[in-house]
């Protein structure tokens, strides 16, 4: 049966300084609608690469495998088409856009996506109202909508700004790439609540994290362990605690 998101035998490489480097070596992963899955794994296992490949970053070359998203061939789509189709990536290191007003950027993005989805565009007043409410729910300072996109934001502000964008763009599938890194406990809780508010039968998420703590707030349906470009183990939410106490050694040994 086709799932909401089906990744099968996905291989991808990057050209680093003239050297082809294989990073994904046959990723198999399925996420049903309405579920939140987490990916954990040691550094350099390919977690962020997976998120970039799913979002359509051109630096990576897909050499084998397929990704089906809501019945569509995801890999054949441009990044903006993927966004319109409902895919959202919360960046591990959000990018700065000097001179670009945050509210203006958000509205341009929201309306681009709404246009592509056949929805009516939001006018400035309606948008600002929605954006203010959403940013307040994330305990963001009121002036953050007026500032330039991510310029001069603290690490925590950048992450909240990612969650704000996610809230406004209303994706059906969100990838959160270490959104918890660099956050203090309070910020972590606020960000997790922001994600939890989106949870519904028509929203799925893939959460990449190193820490069990985020998963305490954001209880996943499944947890996958990724190493050396493959999913080597999958289990229920209890897996997080096991990894936290034992590390990845046992899974790595089993996979070898």
């Amino acid at each position: 049966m086709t799932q909401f998101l089906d990744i099968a035998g996905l291989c991808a490489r990057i050209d680093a300084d003239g050297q082809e480097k294989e990073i994904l070596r046959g990723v198999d992963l399925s996420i049903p609608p309405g579920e939140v899955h987490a990916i954990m794994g040691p550094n350099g296992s390919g977690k962020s690469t997976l998120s970039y490949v799913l979002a359509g970053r051109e630096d990576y070359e897909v050499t084998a495998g397929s990704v089906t998203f809501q019945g569509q061939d995801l890999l054949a789509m441009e990044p903006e088409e993927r966004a319109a189709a409902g895919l959202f990536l919360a960046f591990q290191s959000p990018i700065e856009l000097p001179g670009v007003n945050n509210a203006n950027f958000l509205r341009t993005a929201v309306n681009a996506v709404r246009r592509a989805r056949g929805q009516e565009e939001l006018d400035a007043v309606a948008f600002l109202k929605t954006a203010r409410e959403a940013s307040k729910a994330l305990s963001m300072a009121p002036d953050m909508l007026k500032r330039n996109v991510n310029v001069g934001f603290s690490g925590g502000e950048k992450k909240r700004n990612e969650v704000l964008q996610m809230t406004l763009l209303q994706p059906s599938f969100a990838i959160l790439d270490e959104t918890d890194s660099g956050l203090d406990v309070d910020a972590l809780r606020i960000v997790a609540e922001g994600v939890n508010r989106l949870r519904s039968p028509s929203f799925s998420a893939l959460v990449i994290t190193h820490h069990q703590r985020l998963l305490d707030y954001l209880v996943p349906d499944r947890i996958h362990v990724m190493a050396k470009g493959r999913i080597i183990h999958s289990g229920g939410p209890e897996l997080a605690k096991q990894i936290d106490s034992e590390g990845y050694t046992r899974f790595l040994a089993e996979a070898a």
Partner: protein
Amino acid sequence: MPAVTETREAVEKLGQSSYKWGFETEIDMDLAPKGLNEDTIRLISARKEEPEWLLEWRLSAFKAWQQMTEPTWAKVKYPPIDYQDAHYYAAPKKKPGPKSLEEVDPELLRTYEKLGIPLHEQAMLAGVELPEGETARPPVAVDAVFDSVSVVTTFRKTLEEAGVIFCPISEAVKDHPDLVRKYLGTVVPAGDNFFAALNSAAFTDGSFVFVPKGVRCPMELSTYFRINARNTGQFERTLIVVEDGASVSYLEGCTAPMRDENQLHAAVVELVAMEDASIKYSTVQNWYPGDENGRGGIYNFVTKRGACRGARSKISWTQVETGSAITWKYPSCILQGEGSVGEFYSVAVTNNHQQADTGTKMIHIGRNTRSTIIAKTISAGQSDSTYRGLVRVLPKAYGARNFTQCDSLLIGDRCGAHTVPYIENRNMGARIEHEATTSKISEDQLFYCRQRGLSEEDAVGLIVNGFCRDVLKELPMEFAVEAQKLLQISLEGSVG
């Protein structure tokens, strides 16, 4: 209201990739024979029924020009121009009778229509006044220069009531000869430089603005230039004089039809600001830049200079230059009056094979004079763009201050950006600051925007507009919207 809606629509149509204003109007032309000599100048002067002193002035400029050589110091390359192979006068043939809209060649009006028309409403052209309260924005008066001869000037009446003179310079020569004679050539002398001398000898028309003492011009003044006839160089002459305590905001916009041959444009703009006067001069220049192989396009060799003669006077230049094959342009301020202020805000975009060498000169003469220069340069394709600026502080300019910021943005890896600041300081108490940056639109930024649903072109537009924000915010509303769209359009196809 005015220019905005129509202009935006016109510009959006432009956005369908190629230069859509490449139409040519079939219209009866009155053409002088090719070449520039004393006879041509006499012909121009006679056609315009000019007084003797102006003819003499033209002839002396011509003599000076003959002794001069074309400047070669700018970082631009182009084949030699044969100045004798161009027409120096082209005017739509006049029909007898009183001037009214019906008198205007319908082809001409259709051209305005096609332009979309920044020369906005036909109703305005016809002199129909807007119903009360229909628009919150102040109206814009337009002086249309259609291949050298100003055809219609709107809003003359409202301006007259305020005491403001806004008319074609050829008319000003007839109606206000003393004013023209008093100021013409006093900021940019006839023999100032090669192109200015050429203009002084051969100028056909342009705009004249005079704002008397204490008057704030009740509306923004606007001239839309358009080069239409094949092979006629256009030599516009603009003179703006603002008396004590008066102020004016002047908008200049340009579009030109597509051409295979390069067309020369050598305009001269002179601004005079007296005590406590202020002049804001904004330009959006969108002339045909040539095709993607560098064929055709306008040569834009312009001399623009303002004199802050009175104490506390202020001249502010804002320019968005997206068009022309070659741009050679340095709007400058002579800061003579004590405490006078000069500003230069510039965005120059080059794509494909365009070349731009542009900047400013700030000459600090008086005490406590201040100047600000913000120049944003964007290069894409195989284009080359240079900022060239001079800040000169003379010995008596005690307390002079200058701040200069030059930022370059590169798109792709085949374009060039250069910054050439000249600083000459002869007063130890002056403070001069210069900041410069060069950056590229990063893949990260593009991907981030696209992941949020923006197309690649929209993403570039957003990033570029962000880069230019400090300059764009200086533009009057009418132009700001147009300029933003233009930036994006001129960079289409520059990534990916």
